[in-house]
């Protein structure tokens, strides 16, 4: 409590001080609060009546998950946004108290494949060093193939002169890294350990204020009021919905969505091998793809898509039966292994083939799974896209704006892309004195992210559709597409770049 009062008083006095003294005083404030040692966990937890109408927040982030915290960290790090007063609303105790991760625990099945571009954004805000302190697995190879035995593609980071194609990280590691990163800033944030109940966005009509009733508009007209389920309420200029695919913010703000469910479920679990896996594997099966992602040590993560009925059955199967199924799905059934062009299967694509196709480019068999290392979780698959991401006072980021097929582990990268784009656009707006809740500013974010997200969603959805049919000629076309990607180097390079998070369309780069 003491530290809170001191910080508030200091904050007010800082405002009165001249620019030159500003940084010094902020440092002092940080020292005062940390020397008191009373700071609980990851920052201040809201006190009732702390933020009233006359003292509103600049930004209220609803949802302190990976994407919400990435936004908060990014805002905290940029010179033009670090002064903003931010509220984070999340009932997850980890957001208030931090998250402790034991390295010896087996990996959590909820993992994300972060692309090199996400990694560089994490490095920019200083969060990647915390990821590296925990379990993570870079992979420099990727093999995608097809059950028909007709086509395969193998990617190597060296093809695009990169060290890795990405890194597989447990979601809890990403989350805790962002929380640790946030803890080490003097950002003015308040955490509300609750959930959003209602939101009031006072519509503003200027013409009514003109003339006789010019007092008809008051200061609150420019704020959004958030009521929480614990009875607290707060005011903010801008509300960011980072509250996931079932976003309450999206619902309350009335954003419409487009989407469909795939009538497919994914089984997610952690498995153990006898050797370390350094490659991301994905095999397309008639019922859906199975992916085997390295997660560090001898562990891998499985994302296996299938019909809901099958998923329910497999979840209940005995462990050794399930492991047998996984190994079968990764290697057996349906025909021979795809042949590499060195043994003469290239056809017309051999025209483009590099003469020096390395041994790494040859088809390989994924490592055998020895045993299950976590529980099996089942998630339904769906695609959802909000028709708009922004309106006056409200903006959506991450899964609140779009959920995708988890096919290439791109979902969270799109969300991080949203978070960093939004913080950059807010910063650009502040540079030129724009009101951060101004629709025209938020629409800039929407325009930038919508095109990136829709493109990725269309590609993933296309993959999904292409593989949900088992039909002879289509199989050949798919295989041709794979072979094209494998043997035509420019296409291969642009696919890898795109999958690594470069915002360019494949082929047209």
């Amino acid at each position, binding site marked *: 409590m003491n530290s809170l009062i001191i910080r508030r008083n200091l904050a007010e006095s800082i405002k009165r001080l001249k620019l030159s003294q500003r940084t010094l005083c902020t440092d002092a404030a940080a020292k005062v609060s940390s020397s008191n040692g009373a700071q609980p966990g990851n920052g201040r937890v809201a006190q009732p009546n702390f933020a009233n109408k006359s003292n509103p927040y600049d930004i209220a982030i609803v949802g302190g998950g990976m994407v919400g915290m990435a936004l908060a960290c990014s805002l905290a790090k940029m*010179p*033009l946004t670090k002064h903003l007063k931010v509220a984070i609303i999340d009932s997850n105790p980890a957001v208030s108290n931090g998250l402790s991760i034991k390295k010896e625990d087996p990996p959590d099945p909820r993992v994300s494949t972060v692309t090199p571009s996400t990694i560089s954004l994490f490095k920019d805000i200083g969060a990647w060093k915390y990821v590296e302190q925990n379990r993570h697995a870079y992979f420099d190879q990727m093999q995608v193939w097809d059950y028909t035995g007709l086509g395969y593609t193998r990617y190597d980071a060296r093809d695009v002169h990169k060290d890795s194609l990405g890194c597989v990280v447990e979601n809890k590691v990403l989350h805790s890294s962002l929380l640790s990163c946030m803890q080490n800033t003097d950002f003015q944030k308040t955490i509300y350990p609750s959930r959003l109940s209602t939101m009031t966005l006072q519509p503003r009509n200027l013409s009514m204020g*003109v*003339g006789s009733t010019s007092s008809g508009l008051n*200061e609150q007209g420019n704020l959004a009021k958030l009521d929480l389920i614990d009875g607290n309420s707060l005011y903010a*200029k801008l509300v960011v919905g980072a509250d996931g695919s079932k976003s309450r913010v999206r619902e309350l703000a009335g954003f419409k969505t487009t989407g469909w469910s795939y009538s497919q479920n994914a089984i997610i679990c952690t498995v153990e091998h006898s050797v370390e896996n350094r490659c991301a594997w994905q095999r397309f099966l008639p019922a859906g793809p199975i992916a085997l992602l390295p997660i560090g040590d001898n562990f891998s993560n499985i994302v296996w898509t299938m019909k809901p009925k099958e998923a329910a059955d497999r979840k209940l199967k005995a462990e050794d039966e399930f492991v047998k199924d996984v190994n079968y799905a990764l290697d057996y059934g349906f025909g021979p292994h795809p042949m590499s062009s060195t043994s003469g299967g290239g056809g017309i694509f051999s025209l483009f083939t590099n003469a020096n196709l390395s041994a790494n480019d040859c088809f390989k068999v994924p490592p055998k799974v020895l045993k299950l290392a976590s529980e099996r979780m089942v998630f339904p698959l769906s695609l959802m896209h909000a028709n708009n991401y922004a309106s006056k006072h409200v903006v959506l980021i991450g899964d609140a704006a779009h959920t995708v097929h988890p096919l290439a582990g791109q979902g969270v990268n799109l969300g991080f892309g949203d978070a960093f784009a939004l913080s950059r656009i807010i910063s650009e707006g502040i540079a*030129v*004195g724009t009101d951060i809740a101004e629709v025209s500013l938020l629409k800039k974010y929407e325009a930038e992210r919508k095109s990136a997200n829709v493109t990725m969603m269309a590609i993933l959805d296309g993959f999904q559709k292409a593989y949900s049919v088992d039909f002879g000629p289509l199989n050949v076309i798919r295989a041709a597409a794979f072979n094209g990607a494998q043997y035509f180097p420019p296409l291969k390079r642009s696919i890898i770049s795109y999958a690594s998070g470069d915002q360019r369309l494949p082929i047209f780069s």
Partner: protein
Amino acid sequence: MAVALKLLKQLRAPHTSSTILHRNLSPRLSSIHSATRLFSDSPPPTEPLPAPPPLNPHSPSPSSLNQYELAKFAAVAETWWDSEGPFKPLHMLNPTRLAFIRSTLCRHFGKDPLSPKPFEGLKFIDVGCGGGILSEPLARMGATVTGVDAVEKNINIARVHADLDPVTSRIDYQCTTAEKLVEEQKNFDAVFALEVIEHVADPTEFCKSLSTLTVPGGATVVSTINRSMRAYAAAIVAAEYILHWLPKGTHQYSSFLTPEELALILERASISVQEMAGIEYNPLTGRWSLSDDVSVNFIAYGTKTVTSSL
């Protein structure tokens, strides 16, 4: 920028050449200008950097504003803050011209460009503030802002809108003119007249007022539309008649000033133009950006010469 700087160098040459330039311009100007335009009628300067005119409370016309222009704006004042309304181009243009202001004035006043409020402690005036589209961002950037407009309705709009945010509610809006403030002997660290000079009756007198309002060593920023065929096509034919961005009759082609003319009349009013940039619209992306091309919209920043005293 290179083009603009070259022009400026020419303009800063000894006064004989600037007089020649002016004389060369005059026949062309008088052939285009309507009778209300006084630019070519103003006497050539007797000195390269003339002292600003002494305060003259008995001036026959208290305002350089054209009465017709005034009435036109009262009619559309209500829609100032509708970013999709008649002032849409101004809303779109605003971040671009503010980017120019931020970079030039941070350098001018030696302020930290990474500060969210770099203009803290500085007194700015926005002449012809309209609904406050420029005043509000300047206030958010830390400046102590006075916004003036000759149209009462604009000032009402501006006040109502500024009250929505505590930061902007500190803006001092006044229904007055630059000339009246000169009479009141007010002065400011920086004076802004953006997209205003093309609507005043006498740009020369107007620039003198802007100069008098600027403290010696202070900054003056003026933006307007060039008098070029491209500007005519863009600002009148396209913006008013084809795209309907602006109400028809918003602009009079003959009231436009070329960058050379603007630099010249500012120079005569003791404001030495330091930088000029074009503000360009890309119809494909729908975005405005700063460029070297001053052939349509342009913005100029100058410093008030310290040697001239009031």
